[in-house]
């Protein structure tokens, strides 16, 4: 199926941001993926046309990066970080819960097309271990019960909010965000500084500690 003219217009806007057109390729691939839920041959060809590359050159890039999917992804992509910390602090158990609950294995999609699942190798959320992602939005400090509840809510179309503020949409919507398009969610969750980010600052304030600053500056 050919991609929309709107995607082509947005691709050109992305290219215009860079000194050299080819630099836009990674965000462009996120964008074509947002339309089709995968990077299809049509998506590769559109990127190649717009950049004056061969489709083989674009395909070589699309197949290198794990976030580009060459098979259709479900409505939601659920990721479980299974690397230590997360794996040891509960990620392995969460993976077991997820795959049992959905009856699918790594890189597979449920029959109803609702969920794809992926084992993640470190999500840079070690202080929030164990971490899970839904459409790459973080669900920090997860446990098996919360995970089952999250899946049920997603399935029922109820609102699920990331622990970092944003409302969960779907895989394709996140891909537009990753392409750099404004999704209007930048202010969700204030500055996102939760007790984990504030652990040191809180301790310092409660115990009268601060960095000495010159010239009476605050």
């Amino acid at each position, binding site marked *: 199926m050919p991609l929309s003219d709107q995607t082509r217009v947005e691709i050109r806007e992305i290219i215009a*941001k*860079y*000194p*050299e057109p080819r*630099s836009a390729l*990674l965000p462009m691939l*996120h964008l074509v993926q947002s339309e089709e839920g995968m990077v299809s041959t049509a998506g590769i060809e559109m990127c190649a046309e717009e950049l004056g590359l061969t489709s083989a050159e674009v395909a*070589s*890039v699309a197949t*290198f*990066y794990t*976030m*580009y999917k060459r098979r259709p992804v479900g409505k939601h992509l659920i990721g479980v970080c*299974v*690397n*230590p*910390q997360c794996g*040891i*602090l*509960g990620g392995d158990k969460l993976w077991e819960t997820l795959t049992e609950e959905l009856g699918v294995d790594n890189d597979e999609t449920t029959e109803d097309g609702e969920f794809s699942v992926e084992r*993640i*190798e*470190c999500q*840079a*959320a*070690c*202080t*929030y*271990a*164990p971490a899970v*992602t839904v459409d*790459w*939005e973080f669900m920090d400090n997860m*446990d098996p019960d919360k995970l089952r509840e999250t899946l049920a809510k997603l399935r029922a179309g109820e609102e699920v909010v990331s622990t970092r*503020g944003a409302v969960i949409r779907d895989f394709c919507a*996140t891909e537009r*965000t*990753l392409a*750099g398009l*404004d999704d209007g969610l*930048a202010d969700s969750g*204030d*500055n*996102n*500084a939760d007790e*984990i*980010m*504030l*652990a*040191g*600052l*809180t*301790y*310092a*304030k409660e*115990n009268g*500690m*601060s*960095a000495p*600053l010159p010239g009476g500056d605050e």
Partner: protein
Amino acid sequence: MATALTPVLTRYWDQKDSYTVAGYERNGGYKGLRKALDMAPDDVIEQIKASGLRGRGGAGFPTGLKWSFVPQGDDKPHYLVVNADESEPGACKDIPLMLASPQQLIEGMIIASYAIRANHAFVYIRGEVPHVIRRMHAAVRDAKANGYLGKNILGSGFDLEIVVHGGAGAYICGEETALLDSLEGRRGQPRLKPPFPAVAGLYASPTVVNNVETISMTSQIMRYGAEWYSSFGSEKSPGIKVFAVSGHVKRPGIYEAPLGITMRELLDYAGGIREGHKLKFWVVGGSSVPMLTEDHLDAPLTYEGMEEVGTMLGTATPMVFDDTVSVVRAITGWLDFYKHESCGKCTPCREGTWWIDQLLHRFKDGEGKPEELDLLNELCGNILGRSFCALGDAAATPYPQALKLFPQEFEAGIHTPANEAFDPMASVVFPGVKTS
């Protein structure tokens, strides 16, 4: 006397709008930039050199020196690229810095770009963090609307555009030359060095690649002075560092302190090991550095202090594991990671990570053979120093040290699966779930 915490980069994080220009300015943000723009670019470089600031991405290269390597008067465009591809197990400090204080990073980026005479700068953020990518995009729009980006910044005649760039899932892109290839729209594979990026980087033009924390801190150094900054820390490791403590501690999180603080002190601030357990091992600089034990708790957390005890400060984001954790299981997890992330360019890493991982899995499953303990050491020795970039070296690092410190656990791996020797459910930290 205990080393006190010194929040600098993190000190306004408890204010809800700390990420906006308005919130940042209210706290004196962009004062450092005004000072820098009143100076000659070379003097800014001198100030950063004098501060002793070293790269916070792990390698610890002196920042001012890196900036001074950029040839001037060469008629080529220059580029600044911020490495925000934070992906190594343990490392989780740059994500919070971009969420709560992106203006601080932008201020540092303008200062660095002015110093190296770049009119284009990039933030390369790993793809798996949409909340950070949207926050950085919004922060750049906010800064631009307030006259900090674009043409003639604050009437100085200096122009700068910042592009926020999302990656697509590849740890290797944290290696600076792989990052540059990726930013050029190619497969993210490392380049042969030399030439170094300072001479031939992005589009073969002079380029500085610096970590998020490094660039953020330059805003504070310009604001408060090199002398202020170098008054913290040690002679070889001056300054303040953002530590991220994770694992079996009561209060995991972000702790900002002078370099030279000890792990014993950091553990104390983090509430100590969870109730009823003892520290078993800790890894200070990301999974790529040798692990340490209780014996090393009083070593100063500086570049040289960690070298002295046989490891590396790296990202200074200690992972803490208590006595419920199998060392074999932990390092097998890390090797799964390196195997998954090897870019495939060079043979020792592409093949070697698979071999190490396969053998470790045998020990994890209780099916190791006695002679394979040496075979593993030999494999690691054949990768270390022989791979194209540091990823291969990193993959060869966990095993030899783990074997040295905990030989009995690998010997047990000849007959007993790690998950039988150590109940995995004893290590989990689910709230409300009983842990032994």
